């Protein structure tokens, strides 16, 4: 069981950062992941008093505070309107409403889980993380950086006019996904993310010119699947995941190009 000796509601980010330098201390987000471990936490750091629980929108971007819950993103009207509902769609399968009212976006993205539905969705967009010391870094870089002691303050998503679609496959409702997928499109550029392979979500890109044929899409998808690695775990084999990836990517492309609808 995990234990906590002392609990500090940080009054400034500087204070939180100083405390978080010690490996024995930990930031508490929604605590859902932390509580499953056996960590003996000396000082638990609470960021709730630092105004990081809001989703701000301006003409260029959305800025999402790390203490926003997954449910905040799932139900935010403008955020979902701007990106074809992918926040709602990618989050709604995670455990249950009660759990998503607790789990934070900061804890979810900091952890960079291989199975993450939301990391997959965010990687298909023009997304950044804002770190207290490290500054603003593209999410696509952050995803492969080692877990360190910096504080993830915000997620920034630029409104660059991308159209997006996402889906996942689960053996049963509320389970971890067998595979996650998100696709976004801006003019001729396509962004394809496949996660839970069962490794961390990976972004691939391809271009499609205006007079493309169906074969061009098939070939691009084939190339992407060839270039990313898949593995086997209790939820599915490498081969099964490759076949699923082909279907999930193509469904998302179809949804963006033709409004194709697939029940999930």
């Amino acid at each position, binding site marked *: 069981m995990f234990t906590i000796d002392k609990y500090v509601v940080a009054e400034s980010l500087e204070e939180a950062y100083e405390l978080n330098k010690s490996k024995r201390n930990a930031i508490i987000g929604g605590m859902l992941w932390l509580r499953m471990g056996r960590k003996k936490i000396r000082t638990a750091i*609470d960021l709730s008093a630092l105004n990081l629980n809001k989703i701000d929108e301006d003409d260029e971007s959305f800025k999402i505070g790390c203490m926003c819950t997954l449910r905040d993103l799932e139900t935010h009207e403008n955020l979902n309107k701007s990106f074809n509902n992918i926040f709602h769609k990618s989050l709604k399968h995670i455990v249950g409403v009660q759990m998503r009212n607790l789990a934070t976006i900061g804890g979810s993205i900091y952890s960079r889980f291989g199975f993450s539905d939301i990391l997959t969705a965010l990687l298909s967009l023009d997304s950044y993380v804002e770190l207290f010391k490290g500054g603003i870094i593209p999410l696509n870089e952050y995803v492969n950086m080692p877990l360190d002691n910096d504080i993830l303050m915000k997620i920034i998503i630029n409104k660059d006019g991308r159209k997006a679609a996402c889906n996942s496959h689960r053996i049963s409702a509320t389970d971890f996904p067998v595979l996650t997928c998100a696709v976004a499109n801006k003019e001729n550029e396509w962004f394809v993310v496949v996660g839970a392979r069962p490794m961390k979500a990976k972004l691939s890109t391809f271009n499609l010119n205006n007079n493309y044929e169906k074969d061009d899409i098939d070939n691009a998808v084939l190339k992407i699947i060839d270039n990313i690695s898949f593995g086997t775990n209790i939820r599915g084999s490498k081969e099964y995941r490759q076949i699923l990836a082909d279907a999930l990517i193509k469904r998302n492309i179809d949804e963006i190009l033709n409004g194709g609808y697939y029940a999930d």
Partner: protein
Amino acid sequence: MQIKLWINDKEYVDDISPDTILLDFLRSKGCLSVKRGCETSNCGLCTVLLQGKPILSCSTLAVRANGLKVTTIEGIQDEASEFGGFLADEGAEQCGFCSPGFIMNVIAMKNELKNPTEDEIKNYLEGNLCRCTGYMGQLRAVKKYLEKYSDMKKGA
């Protein structure tokens, strides 16, 4: 550390260890409807409302409720027993162990969603596991319960 919170509108001030889990704190204050059905945040049995929103009390520190209002079934007896009647009418309960968390989440859903579709109902209640039934009785009970309220609204 000291916390002050309201459980079912009654104020409590207490000195607790920082790793006290809200579920255990609530039970220690006599809210025995709040139970633990799993160790992995999956079952929904421990559902309570924090500032009106459904959360898992097994996965929340009691200090996180500092200054806030918690509602358990003990605080909404009339609403809970009314919905309990709908469950009974549909034969939806077998052992009944899952009911406290399920009832809390149904009430949270009724407060949050307006005229939900069947898919929306299923999605909202997906995090409440029942090991005995096939959920069909529950779904019928929920639909009839919500219908009653939408009829009342229409009539008003």
